[in-house]
């Protein structure tokens, strides 16, 4: 099943991402930006039809597992997931982009995945594969703000992160933001934010307003598709929040390129 999710995520663009691109094209007035958005949409069509990867960077496989507390797991979950990654990446002719040793580098292979396991209420399990492209992963930012930080400072940090990603990380982006928790947890929140359906807003009132304000401001930066101008710099800003400490306010920005890919199965 993990294998099938790898292939699906890499070959078939998420319907919500596809819709967001169509909407962006309808709104965009810059001629060059319209041409590039057209190519991006055409690319998704070719990928699906020809069973090719949407992008040659088939990402670092990040796997989110939510296990219901009524579920009993037999066997080695992580081992099975990693085997599924290898099988899926081979089956889908995806790229072997992972090196075993971050310093020595050496020959690349298909895994292991980064696996996040969470225990939730219920009697089913939910498995999501997010192949994260590294052009955009390289632009990730984390900042530990003071608890008294002004909203404008927070906005500025997020907008600067988008500007620094600029033309290099394949705009239009989906901007994942983690707000609260600890340094490590806010990074996880920022990545998880990329899984939320584009167009679905945060359930928190403050975060929802921030998402809308940031999206407006980011789309005024004139970065545009490929960084060549236009009002389509981001397709969405998704913010996930968590309670935090009285002494701080951790904020993380995890950007996705326009080829935001993920696939989910429920067991």
């Amino acid at each position, binding site marked *: 099943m993990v294998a099938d999710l790898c292939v699906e995520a890499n070959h078939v663009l998420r319907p919500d991402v596809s819709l967001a691109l169509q909407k962006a094209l309808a709104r965009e007035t810059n001629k060059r930006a319209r041409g*590039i958005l057209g*190519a*991006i949409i*055409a*690319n*998704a069509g*070719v*990928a699906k039809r*020809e*069973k*090719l*990867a*949407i*992008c*040659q*960077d*088939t990402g670092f496989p990040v796997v989110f597992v939510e296990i219901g507390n009524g579920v009993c797991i037999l066997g080695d979950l992580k081992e099975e997931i990693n085997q599924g990654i290898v099988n899926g990446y081979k089956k889908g*002719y*995806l*790229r*072997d*982009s992972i090196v075993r040793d971050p310093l020595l*580098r050496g*020959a*690349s292979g298909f895994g292991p995945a980064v696996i996040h396991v969470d225990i939730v209420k219920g009697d089913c399990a939910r498995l999501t594969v997010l192949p994260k*492209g590294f*052009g955009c992963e*390289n632009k990730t930012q984390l900042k530990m703000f003071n608890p008294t930080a002004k909203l404008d400072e927070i906005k500025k940090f997020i907008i600067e992160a988008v500007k620094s990603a*600029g*033309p*290099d*990380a*394949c705009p239009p982006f989906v901007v994942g933001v983690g707000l609260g928790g600890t340094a490590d947890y806010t990074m996880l929140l920022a990545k998880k934010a990329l899984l939320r359906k584009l167009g679905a807003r945060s359930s928190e009132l403050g975060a929802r307003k921030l998402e809308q304000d940031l999206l407006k401001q980011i789309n005024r930066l004139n970065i545009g598709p*490929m*960084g*060549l101008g236009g009002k389509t710099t981001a397709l969405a800003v998704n913010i996930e929040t968590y309670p935090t400490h009285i002494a701080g306010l951790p904020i993380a920005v995890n950007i996705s*390129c*326009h*080829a935001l890919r993920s696939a989910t199965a429920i067991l």
Partner: protein
Amino acid sequence: MKKITTPLDENQIRNLKVGEMVSLSGVVYTARDQAHKRFLEKGSRGFSWKGQVVYYCGPTRKPKGKIIGSCGPTTSSRMDSFTPALLAQGLKGMIGKGRRCKEVIAAIKKYKAVYFLTFSGCGALLSEYVRKVTPVAYKNLGPEAILKLEVKDFPLIVGIDSRGNSVY
């Protein structure tokens, strides 16, 4: 749209203006991080960048019955520290995505070369412009090996022209 063919001669390069769309036919060679590093450390027997075009690309594995897998551009700036040395060796064109540092822009101007952008995140679409693939060097680098790609009407935008004008 202006059509250009490899090898890129002085005249073709001089006539390319920043921001214009062109389509390229001929030969380009893939190379990304590790291929750049290895080439400048150890060289490669029988292969030279003189007069050539590099494509910053590491394709997916070739599916059965296809010429190549998905093959879009990777972030060019990661190659910046190696680029002036390759331009000094006669490299004439580069294809990638995103910004270049000022040292690279100066070297492009000095050696009369050109930097192109192509549709980023569109590797499936771009695979349709590739006619033939031949392995050239560093096979053990896997997706980072140097491949010779024969392309037809490959879509490009002039990112930095030979006068050092940048689109960004």
